[in-house]
């Protein structure tokens, strides 16, 4: 079998003596959605921030397509095609949707200046697909609703042909209709062969969208299961009791 798209091997992170992530290994194949589950403080977000370059790891290795890579800041991660949609919605509040979508990779005119018009045009196209009701292209992100901000954040991540997408509770701020929209989007991205790490509290979302689920508890990996092989109760048992289900993958 091919090497996984991403492999995090024996990752450890400590904050002032507390082991937030303790010797955790997970991997992800192209076109696969892997759910990361666990209580608050289980270490899911910390683990994922290692991959996206926001935190530095104390131990362990990262492999992309079987080759070991060094990721020490967000720019490194982006160079490997890793895009992240953060739980805290990392948007610059004072600039508009287009500026946020292209932050860090602005389109430029042939004079080397910002091509705001082209960026706005592309933003209108992407947002039109993602959230057809969105019309507030000229307003700063601050004045957008939670759902609108979320769609800007998602549009930002998919606009740049990510190979690896990390979604940290992408549906947390969304209503039912927008949640369905995100689900459709995840299916679409899967078809395109993008690998997705999905962090979510909602066990049903994970059961519906993910191929595999890795469960963490107190910084340790409880186990990784094929979602098809287990029931909701099995996963709940892993989350709450840290108990391996009988039919582990």
């Amino acid at each position: 079998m091919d090497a996984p798209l991403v492999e995090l091997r024996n990752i450890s992170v400590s904050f002032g003596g507390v082991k937030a992530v303790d010797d955790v290994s997970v991997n992800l194949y192209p076109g696969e959605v892997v759910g990361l589950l666990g209580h608050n403080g289980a270490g899911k977000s910390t683990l994922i921030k290692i991959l996206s370059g926001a935190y530095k790891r104390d131990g362990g290795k990262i492999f992309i397509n079987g080759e070991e890579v060094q990721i020490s800041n967000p720019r490194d991660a982006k160079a490997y095609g890793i895009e992240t949609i953060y739980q805290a919605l990392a948007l610059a509040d004072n600039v508009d949707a287009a500026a946020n979508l292209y932050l860090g990779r602005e389109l430029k005119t042939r004079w080397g200046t910002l091509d705001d018009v082209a960026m706005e045009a592309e933003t209108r196209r992407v947002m039109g697909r993602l959230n057809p009701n969105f019309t507030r292209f000229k307003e700063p992100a601050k004045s957008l609703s939670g759902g609108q901000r979320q769609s800007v954040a998602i549009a930002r991540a998919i606009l740049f042909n990510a190979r690896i997408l990390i979604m940290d509770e992408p549906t947390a701020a969304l209503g039912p209709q927008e949640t369905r929209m995100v689900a459709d989007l995840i299916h679409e991205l899967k078809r395109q062969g993008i690998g997705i790490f999905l962090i979510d509290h909602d066990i049903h979302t994970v059961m519906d969208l993910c191929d595999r689920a890795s469960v963490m508890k107190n910084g340790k990996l409880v186990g990784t299961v094929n979602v098809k092989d287990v029931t909701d109760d099995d996963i709940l048992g892993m989350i709450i009791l840290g108990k391996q289900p009988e039919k582990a993958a």
Partner: protein
Amino acid sequence: MATEQSSKSATAKSEGLIRTFLKATELDVRILGMLGALLLVWCTFDVLSGLIQPNASIFSGLFLTPRNLWTLLVQTSSIAVMATGMVLVIVMRQIDLSVGSMLSMLAVAGAMVQVFMLGPWLGVGHPIIWVAGVATCLVLGTLVGVFNGVLTAYLQIPSFIVTLGGLIAYSGIAFLLASGVTIAPLDQTYDIIGGGVPQSWLGPMWSWVLGLAACALIVFGILSGRKQRRRFSFPLRPVWAEIVLASIGSAAVLLTTYVVNSYPWPFGLIKQYAQDHNVTIPVGDANSDGNAICMAGDQVVRCMDGLVYYTGYAVPVLIALMVGAVMTFVATRTKFGRYIYAIGGNPEAAELAGINTRMVTVKVFALMGFLAGLSAVISSARLDAATNALGQSNELYVIAATVIGGTSLAGGIGTVYGALLGALLMQSIQSGMQLLNLPAAFQNIVVGTVLVMAVFVDQLYRRRVK
């Protein structure tokens, strides 16, 4: 009852008109407010300064005269240049308290290069001297800025502390360098940058040429903006709004040009110039109110119709305007500017978006240092001397101008043209009170009060908009 109602609906209607106007032209209300405040300040000082004249009347005011307005522009330039940089610093949620001391230090260093090092060696007036003087200020300024930026960005010392230390230390260095004495006179070509000598005045013809070129640029900018938006079939501003904007902009430029072109050279300088260049002075009747010079017998006297020269734009004003244009471009049209605003809006998001926030911080401080160097050249050239106290408390005026101009200390919000207007407003208040012969202590009280009031009004406005 009926009249009350009709007047109410009339108010509503006019409010609707204003709103339509603002919406169509996409003008910033706060900038209009500042322009209104500026106009109010000018008119008030004009009337008040008229009333204290011996033969008082509404029209004997001294503020709205070409002489005062021209001087006002020249006096504003040094602070205005630094304020354009301070906008970016504050937008990025940093502060630079050291620009005043930096200005003193750089001006002294630039003056020493001219007076003590190159002057004796190359001979006074050698063209390398002024170039070296300017380069010293600009290069050293940039380096000091980089130093401030590195301490802030890489050693993670808060910029308030870094530059507070700089405020104290750089003024100490300036004192040591100058050994407490005034370094003068500076190179004559260098002095042109200060606007205090006739060679630094553009004269009416070139001032008109520049004014008309600026008008052409305004029209070109509006047209190319429309073309761009049409390319992607975005909503366009109504044509009448574009015409109104172009007219207002051009009118402001032409009016300013007219004013600076109406300010005659001082009497002594015209006389000097005529003698130096063998210009024949016409014969005429003496009139102490005139701006021209005439021969009455063998005496050179003031007269109405005689030999007269007008100043036009002064070099430092042109520098400030150009810096304003370039900095507006940097802030709104470049990646660098976009990153500064993004960092100010959400530093974490900017970092996660892959922006090298530390490098941007260093670059912004370097730019601030460069502009402090430019202001050092302007200030010392205008004075034809440098002292260790040249830039004293300039940092406060620069920050005040920036904040009055609508830049939020919370970061993320601010415009370069706002800061330019803020600098002009503050200088207007100061010069106005000087015209009224109010003591310096009183001026400080008023400037401080205006700063606090301006921020308060701005907060009120923002809360209402929300």
